[in-house]
């Protein structure tokens, strides 16, 4: 087997050194009957070519977004990833490194994490960021738990504009810690007012969670909500699913958010059918010791040279065990590398330029769809994603569009299976990858499907 270097002669010599007669002897502590004598009932080993062929056959049974006009969003976005990103993350020194516990031989990982933290803090408008989380949804749940710790309160208020997966994960995380999760149902046609959640905020409220832009694509100023939270001693958590947006719109930090977290997939990371992605997590200097996850900090070495280490680890499970801020052990290292390399290529001009193109593509898509008979664009505001109302069930329309080679958005019924009132709504995202031809193909396919 090509990954196994020991030869039969090696094995014999090694057993002799050990003083064992066979490898089975080394398993002498396994209870009798539990040690298998034969391989399990699965196929035997195969060469690289055969395996590649089998996996390619599976891939061919799918329609990838690269081979269709694709307008899917709802928390994962197709963007162009520069070739440099994939080259860098496949360097073995990054790909095959471990968590940087030995900083003398992990300065590469540590320095990029320090740069990553700075980039995330910059785009969110916050003081500090951690070295990444698993994804946007788990970041949201961890943010709520963090707010409960920081305020010593046990109630979270979730906006109706929060991604349903984020809400479900938060509810799952809170269900066994006596934390109450309150909130409102959202609707794309009911414009959330600034005071929507005010009456749910009381002296027991640890935090309010809003998404910006929200799940329906709307953009709203949350300054007044931040004030309402702070007046009651609660924290404002601003969640996002599209990290490109902050190149075009004001940062959540500018509203007075206490925690900003969300999904970083958009920058540098492939769609990969939903994972692995990278959770971004930022907060204020005041709250940094309550933050979950790994943190990289600057220091000096024995010779006085600048270097980086993992720090504030007294928050973490390997030190604090059951009293830790979270059970998180890994972060999303390689995905954060992809994010930071892409971000370095973009820089100020590229990041803002990319955001501008995304908005322009989305505006053009919205304008084109609005001309299709029976279709109305619901949003007054949006960045690169918006909701449209269709004259019939969106789920069926999406299937019909797929048959015409168009991946035409996410029906809200997929996200809200128990909400009959959302049946006719379709969530549409456009990015720099969508050409004028894609937009025209989408509009014309939709026209045919609805005709």
């Amino acid at each position, binding site marked *: 087997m090509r*990954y196994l270097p020991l030869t039969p002669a*090696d094995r014999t010599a090694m057993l002799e050194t050990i003083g064992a007669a066979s490898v089975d002897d080394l398993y002498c502590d396994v209870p009798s009957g539990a040690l298998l004598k034969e391989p399990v009932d699965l*196929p035997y080993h195969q060469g690289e070519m055969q395996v590649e062929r089998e996996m390619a056959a599976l891939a061919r049974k799918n329609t990838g977004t690269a081979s269709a006009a694709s307008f899917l969003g709802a928390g994962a976005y197709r963007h162009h990833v520069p070739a440099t990103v994939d080259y860098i993350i496949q360097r073995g020194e990054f790909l095959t490194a471990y968590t940087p516990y030995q900083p*003398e031989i992990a300065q590469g990982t540590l320095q990029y994490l320090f740069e990553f933290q700075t980039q995330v803090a910059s785009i969110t408008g916050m003081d500090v960021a951690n070295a990444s989380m698993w994804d946007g949804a788990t970041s949201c749940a961890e943010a709520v738990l963090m707010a409960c710790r920081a305020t010593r309160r046990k109630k979270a208020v979730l906006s109706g504009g929060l991604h349903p997966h984020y809400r479900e994960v938060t509810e799952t995380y809170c*269900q066994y*810690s006596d934390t109450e999760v309150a909130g409102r149902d959202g609707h794309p046609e009911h414009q959330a007012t600034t005071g929507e959640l005010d009456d749910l905020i009381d002296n027991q409220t640890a935090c309010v969670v809003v998404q910006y832009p929200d799940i329906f694509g709307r953009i709203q100023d949350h300054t007044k909500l931040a004030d309402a939270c702070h007046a009651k001693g609660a924290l404002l958590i601003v969640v996002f699913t599209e990290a490109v947006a902050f190149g075009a719109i004001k940062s959540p930090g500018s509203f007075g958010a206490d925690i900003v977290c969300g999904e970083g997939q958009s920058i540098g990371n492939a769609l990969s059918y939903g994972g692995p992605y990278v959770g971004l997590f930022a907060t204020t200097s005041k709250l940094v010791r309550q933050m979950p996850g790994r943190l990289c900090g600057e220091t000096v070495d024995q010779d006085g040279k600048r270097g980086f*280490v993992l720090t504030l680890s007294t928050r973490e499970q390997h030190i604090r065990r059951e009293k830790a801020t979270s059970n998180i052990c890994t972060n*999303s290292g390689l995905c954060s590398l992809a994010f930071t390399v892409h971000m370095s290529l973009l820089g100020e001009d590229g990041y803002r330029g990319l955001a501008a193109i995304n908005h322009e593509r989305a505006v053009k898509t919205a304008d084109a769809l609005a001309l299709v008979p029976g279709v109305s664009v619901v949003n007054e505001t949006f960045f690169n994603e918006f909701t449209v109302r269709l004259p019939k069930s969106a789920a069926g329309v999406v299937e019909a569009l797929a048959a015409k080679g168009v991946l035409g958005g996410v029906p809200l019924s997929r996200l809200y299976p128990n909400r009959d009132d959302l049946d006719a709504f379709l969530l549409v995202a456009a990015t720099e990858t969508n050409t004028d031809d894609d937009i025209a193909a989408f509009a014309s396919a939709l026209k045919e499907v609805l005709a």
Partner: protein
Amino acid sequence: MSFQTHTGNRGLVLEEKLIFEQGEAGRCGVDLPKPDAVKSRLGGLERDSDVGLPGLSEPQVVRHYTRLSQKNFGIDSGFFPLGSCTMKHNPRLNEKVARMPGLADLHPMQPESTVQGALELIDSCAHWLMVLTGMPAVAMSPASGAQGELCGMMAIRAALDARGENRRRVLVPESAHGTNPATAAACGFTVDSIPATADGRVDLAAFEAKLGDDVAGIMLTNPNTCGLFERDVRKIADLVHAAGGYFYCDGANFNAIVGRVRPADLGIDAMHINLHKTFSTPHGGGGPGSGPVVFSDALAPFAPLPYVLHKDGKFHLVETASEQDGKKPFGRLKGFHGQMGMFIRALTYMKSHGADGLRQASGDAVLNANYLLARLKDKLSVAFPGYCMHEALFDDEFLKGTGVSTLDLAKAIIDEGFHPMTMYFPLVVHGALLVEPTETETKESIDQFCDAVLSLVAKAESGDAEFFKNAPYLTPRRRLDETAAARNPVLRWVPKNAE
């Protein structure tokens, strides 16, 4: 020969500034088309200030990260015997397959009809894991080992709730990884430690004495964190079941037994599998991991959403709870459907090895560890007697009187060109050194490592503690001041004029 260079570079060891110290306004590493003028729909919330990102060209970016990579030690660089982490070779075929069109470019919310191959792939990966563990069900979505633990313990909590029982005490051996107690606490359980015996296993009598009708279950790592197989594992399973509790097994060390021992035959109810350990998906400098959880029939109904169902010749992704199929999922753990990129890599790895190769791999992993143990046992102090599984554990007794600590020795090992072993874990052993060579190392590299360690031990015994205190000498950075970093945290770059 030691001298200062003008640049601070030392041959191939190149100093590299932060990107923020290299940026220039007007430079950019991407060329983007200019958007047409459109009427803004941003609702008056247009960004009105700079983000503060540096501008770099593509060649600068490539050089920056190339230089950073050269300050890192990976499995590709050399022997990486980091105990409990299973730093085995990461095949490049896995990376190639994960990037195939039709896999890498799949959106998680595409209609089912367009992702039949992806759902089949998840189902197939699940099938391999179920056969290898002998377990009837698996939850694929957990993002990592720690989230896998959370998944398993939440299923236990949900099963207890369904039984209407208020059991809240979880038994966790002292030797457990820190994630175990942290996870139990996150599910509302209290943690009760079980002591270890002199031979590094669970103290069965102490365990039995702690059982009671408030016990939710046990979290046991097997093979355990001392690198030993819990020979009373079946008895532990029987006892905890008889007491009305569940058996959570931490599968971090599954690599020692894969293809040779099925956890189902040991009586477990749930176990997470670290795809980034046993099934070779890359560690990536700290993730992303992936931690599917296998379940017994007792816990299977409580597995989280979503899951893949094969029915009427088609694959379905079940994203909402429905009572009619007898499932009572405890909730959702992650956005979308799990770490698909890792399922692709793990399945590629499993298909490459096959049932025969996986069995060979675990056997070689255990053989390599025992060979290393045999080569070092006379000079280092072995923590517990007998054969080990896939990793060998030593305590620091052999360093007694030398003035050299486990940490000092590890830093000297770095200068010899190896990644050190895991230090000071598990906590039950004083000054622990946990060495896991994995099956993908040659006998020659293990011999070289053992020779180097033995020469260092001889040096320590000769009284040269000062040499060790100052190691490493040959790395891009020497020992870093972690105390200063924690006392005055500098967690981001700030422009000089803003300080």
